[in-house]
């Protein structure tokens, strides 16, 4: 009997090796473990084993049973894995190189850049304000110290309207209202669309965007303005920039400055965007004129501050590489749709 058990184990191992499919494994199971299988056959013979050998034979049979069960388990699992593997191999393959439908619309480049600039200013503690496009003569001129005789007030420079108002010629038109609402201690940024009665060409538009900011506080100095402008432009360009001030002249400010920044494209080495000077003129600014503060009800002896404008459309043109400002106001959908939602 002992010999038979050993033979059965050998026989099982051989069949197991030969099994190819789950069905083969099932057949082996029936052959050995089934009702009429070898194990049961053995059990029947076991009854006739001499009592003194029963213990030894019992253990041998049990061990054989366990070996076969474990072996079968392994066999079936292996065959299942094999089958799954075969099935996966035959699955339809994905063409992961296919393009996907990426149709999205597009924000106007001004909108994208304006958002970036607003974010930079909000992070610097600024409140953002909105303004009208049609303004009174008072808001647009008188309240910001543009005298009656100033050329800007001529019909040739300003779009005067038949109700006596104007299409605002600069964002400063909102200063008086903003200083009255937020002053005397405030930091406000106000983007807006402005208009000039000019003929159109590649660099002149009668409709353009500006972004203006005011800071009013106590004891504000020119050195504060320089510090601020530098930090602010760092926020806008997301890198360190150098700035330099040159004298400027605007009615709203005294002293007034033209602020140049190192060209963001060439980093100051000189390129076509900066006419090979390494600098771009970007930011007219200055200390707010006492008359402007007074007109807004702010005591100019106690408070002072600075105001600045960003040549926003110029910045948009630099960022987008557009060389004709008229494109920004033109409704060329094919062109505009290329901007997506980030620049």
């Amino acid at each position: 009997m002992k010999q038979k058990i050993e033979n059965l184990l050998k026989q099982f191992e051989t069949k197991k090796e030969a099994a190819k499919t789950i069905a083969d494994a099932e057949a082996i199971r029936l052959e050995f473990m089934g009702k009429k299988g070898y194990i049961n056959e053995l059990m029947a013979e076991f009854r006739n084993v001499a009592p003194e050998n029963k213990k030894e034979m019992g253990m041998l049979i049990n061990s054989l049973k366990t070996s076969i069960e474990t072996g079968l388990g392994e066999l079936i699992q292996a065959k299942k894995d094999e089958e799954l593997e075969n099935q996966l191999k035959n699955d339809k393959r994905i063409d992961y190189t296919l393009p996907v439908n990426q149709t999205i619309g597009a924000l106007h480049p001004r909108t994208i850049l304006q958002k970036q600039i607003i974010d930079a200013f909000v992070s610097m503690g600024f409140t953002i304000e909105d303004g009208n496009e049609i303004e009174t003569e008072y808001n647009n001129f008188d309240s910001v110290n543009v005298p009656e005789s100033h050329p800007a007030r001529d019909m040739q420079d300003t779009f005067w309207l038949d109700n006596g108002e104007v299409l605002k010629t600069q964002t400063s038109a909102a200063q008086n209202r903003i200083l009255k609402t937020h002053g005397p201690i405030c930091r406000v940024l106000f983007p807006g669309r402005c208009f000039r009665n000019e003929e159109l060409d590649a660099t002149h538009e009668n409709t353009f965007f500006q972004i203006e900011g005011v800071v009013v506080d106590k004891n504000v100095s020119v050195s504060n303005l320089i510090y601020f402008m530098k930090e602010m432009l760092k926020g806008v360009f997301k890198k360190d920039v150098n700035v330099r001030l040159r004298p400027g002249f605007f009615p709203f400010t005294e002293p007034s400055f033209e602020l140049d920044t190192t060209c963001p494209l060439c980093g100051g080495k000189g390129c076509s965007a900066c006419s090979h000077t390494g600098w771009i003129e970007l930011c007219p600014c200055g200390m707010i004129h006492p008359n402007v503060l007074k007109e807004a009800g702010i005591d100019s002896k106690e408070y002072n501050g600075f105001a600045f404008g960003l040549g926003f459309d110029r910045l948009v043109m630099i960022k987008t590489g557009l060389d004709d400002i008229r494109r920004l106001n033109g409704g060329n959908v094919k062109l505009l749709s290329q901007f997506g939602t980030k620049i």
Partner: protein
Amino acid sequence: MKISINWIKEFVNLDGIEPEEIVKRFNLATAEIEGVEYKGKDTYNVVFGKIIEVQNHPESNKLHILKVDVKSEVLQIVCGAPNVRANMVTCVAKVGGAVCGHKIGAAKLAGIDSFGMCCSAKELDIGEDDEGIMDITENVPLGEDIKNVFNIDDVVFEIDNKTLTNRPDLWGHYGMAREIAVIFGRKLKDIKKVSLTDFDLLPKLDVKVESKNCYRYSAIAIDNVTVKKSPMNMAIRLYYAGMRDINLLADVTNYIMLELGQPMHAFDHEIVKGIKVVDAKKGDKLLTLEGEEHELSENTLVIADNKGVPVAIGGIKGGMKASISEQTTNVLVESATFDSVSVRKASRTIGLSTDASARYEKSLDPELVPVATARFIEILKSIDKGIKVSSKFTDVYTKKYALPKIKITADFISSRIGENISESEIIKVLAGLGFDVTKNGKNIEVVVPSFRATKDVSMEEDLVEEIARIYGYDNITPKPLAFEPKPTFLNTAIGEEYEVKKYLAEKYNGVEIHSYIWNYQDFNASHFIDSKSYIKLMDSSNAGQSGIRSELAPTLLKVISENRNTLSEMRVFEIGRVATGIDENNLAIEKKKLAVVFASQTKDTYTLFDTLKEFIVSYAKTNLALDIVLKEGDKPSYMHPYNTFRVTSREGDYGYIGILNPKVSKSIDKRLNIVVLEIDFGLMSSKHGYFKKVKVPYKYQSTNLDVSVLVPENMNYGALEQILNKYRSKIMVGYVLKDIYQSEALQGKKSITVSYELSGKDHTLEGSEIDEFLSGLISHIEKNKLEIRKN
């Protein structure tokens, strides 16, 4: 404006200062230098030579063979200039020399050897004349390098005029010299000039000022002017400064203008016996020096002779009639100050802008008037020794500016600049700039000089600028502002603008447009779009349109029309301003609108409408918590009369959504289906709905029950909703629209299926409860004259 360094050097010693250094410092302290020209740099070995023989060239009609004496030798030169003649003195570039970078070598011209080149003024870049070679009448040594006689080597700065608008004192070399002197801490020399009091005993001229726009008018008579042509060095200087030489008298007036910034004019005294300054009368005309006739508008200043005949446009241009001619020997010289605004307006109206008007527009200092005249006589006399002043300096001075007195302290200046600046430094800078400065205890008392007092400097802040810019903006250390912790809020209107644009671009493939604010009357009219303009432009020549738009959608329709040949599918949007009327104070009623237009050749209007509706409803819900309800109501006539609806919520009525009237869409493009949304975005973004209180869902499993109701085909879902909303039950969680089915088999009806969610609060629902709910619902529906569709 062009500034010659040689000229500046007459007034400031610039030894040891490189032009590049001047450019750098001047840019940062005063005004923008746009360009630098190094005159004469690439010209050398050019000498004076005398043509001693002229022979015709055997091979050419134009060329001549010259023998030119340059003292050390006689050169054979082949020359093509038409004006060659024997005994003519000219400029000769020798072999090995160069003329503005062109190297001169020995050459063969049409077979004849040529050793050098005779030069024109244009070739040497010292004058405009390119008609022939230089014809020098002055006494010059033959063989001498021309640079030893003519001031050809110079550095010329081109200054951006725009940066000088508020500095009338910088419109001449002397003012520039003053700036440069202060910047480099050098001394400014006085101007050499005659004393006008020397002529006090001579007879007065007849000068009358009858216009308030003339602040000062002076005239002086000078006889016996015999020299006609300016010396070469003066011509070169004028040329470098951007003008050309005309005749001695005109040249000296221009010279004074370029030097002092004071325009002058010389009249032929035989023609103009006296002066009357008046405002032009309607119909007055003047023929200018150039022979152009200009009609003068009222308020234009006219210089007339004492009989009232106009001889010049005040501050702008002289007339032909009294101009200097070959015969003129006696002149009447004007030096005057006119009102800046009046000159500017006249110059614009007439369409004539001159070097004189550009200066008068800046508000010139009337105190310059006698200085200019005295300098004029000085210069003229140095060239034409025989001149004789024959009248008193006759001066009518009607408007004198007050000289502002300003008190500052070093503390004030330091705190405004943010740097410690000493009293002595302040005084040095201001005095250098011509301010009269007195120390009085801690106070510094400053009197503004007349040349800065016409509009430029009047208060403390102006002095802050003067000191800061000379101190050097680049010497100021940037310092942070004190930190003020204060919450900031993004203006909701601006923030929402970005949100809605992003929503449209990202979720609905919208492309944002920026269009003009004009009302496109012609486009609208030709496409059956009736859109009003309540506000008109006073001058519409540059805009090309006459008024401001009152609606935004028509502009986008124009965009659709412009792009229809390149795109078959367009989704465009804009947030823009419109004026919807005028209020009781005559002020514009301005609105910020959002317009969205979808146009497609492939999708039908109903599909487009559904998408557009989905946009506005989902956006308003997501971002503003507003529940949008479409309602019947007003719509523009260019929209579909039945398929256009009001966009509303409980909080307000914002605008409309609908299908474009087919009449309009057909006229734009037959192939396009177009839907439009226009809402008052300023209004909508100012509203904010509230999110409903949340309900904790029941934990017992809920049951879905579909019910189909047959309703008349033309009945809106909303009407059924109103009926269904009246049926209430404790086990009802809610219902949603599942399906709308239409078929001929339903005979004029449609079937609307809604799906109810039913659930018990504290137990799983029993079949009987559901049956009870359903039978109640059926009888409610039947009570409302509708029936349940049985499958």
